[in-house]
């Protein structure tokens, strides 16, 4: 089954925490404690997002991370590439979506339908804005399938 990595999920949770109030500053420890996330992994993810200009950090007692760019201009595809491709020695060996896209383009001999599906998935992830996943009042809280499925299961 297709699913997001834990790193992407934690990145989204951290961004949602920071997006809750405009200009909110929160430390990695505070976010980890609020959402019961593993602090060392979260610190790594936040540092990485800072490196990509998504977050900025401030030092000091009241320091921490805050959102540094418009999340409307960041796609889910871009976020996955930032958090999942980190630390791989060579591109293409991690199996992540960013590199899967490159691989799909390059493998002209690969099975056509699979390549088409891969490119469609990439296009979808590029169309999803991170803002629509993390901003309160903009994201979907109850997918319509959950409402219809609950009736089928009852």
């Amino acid at each position, binding site marked *: 089954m297709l699913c997001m990595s834990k790193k992407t999920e934690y990145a989204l*949770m951290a961004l949602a925490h920071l997006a809750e109030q405009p200009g909110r500053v929160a430390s990695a420890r505070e976010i980890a404690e609020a959402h019961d996330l593993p602090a060392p992994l979260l610190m790594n993810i936040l540092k990485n997002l800072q490196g990509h200009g998504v977050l900025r950090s401030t030092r000091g007692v009241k320091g921490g991370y805050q959102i540094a760019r418009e999340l409307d201009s960041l796609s889910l595809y871009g976020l996955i590439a930032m958090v999942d491709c980190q630390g791989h020695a060579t591109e293409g060996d991690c199996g992540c979506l960013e590199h899967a896209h490159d691989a799909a383009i390059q493998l002209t001999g690969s099975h056509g339908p699979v390549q088409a599906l891969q490119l469609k998935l990439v296009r*979808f992830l590029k169309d*999803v804005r991170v803002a629509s996943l993390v901003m309160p*009042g903009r*994201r979907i809280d*109850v997918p319509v399938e959950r409402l219809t499925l609950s009736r089928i299961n009852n």
Partner: protein
Amino acid sequence: MPITLSENAAKEIKSIIKDQGLPEDKTRLRVGVKGGGCSGFSYMLDLVEDEPAEQDEQLESNGVKIVVDMKSYLYLNGAEIDFKDEVMGRGFVFKNPNATSTCGCGHSFQA
């Protein structure tokens, strides 16, 4: 303040009721919160035909009958439920003035 449904949300609920062949006069939208999720509570929506319990709050918004249990009502008072159909999916969006913190998965909140 009551719980309200936007016009879009009401239209979608009516369409689901019709698609599933539910009796329009008896079917109510049960709105609630339940414990769970990474921020403490998650939102619930369900279509029910049962008579509301004595303690349930009964409301109506844009032609849709709504029932809420008393406990959930404390957390949902003043909330607006909207419907969105976007590239990432179709579903209901809660604008809840009681939520002080929400989580990235979008399924839970704190109040």
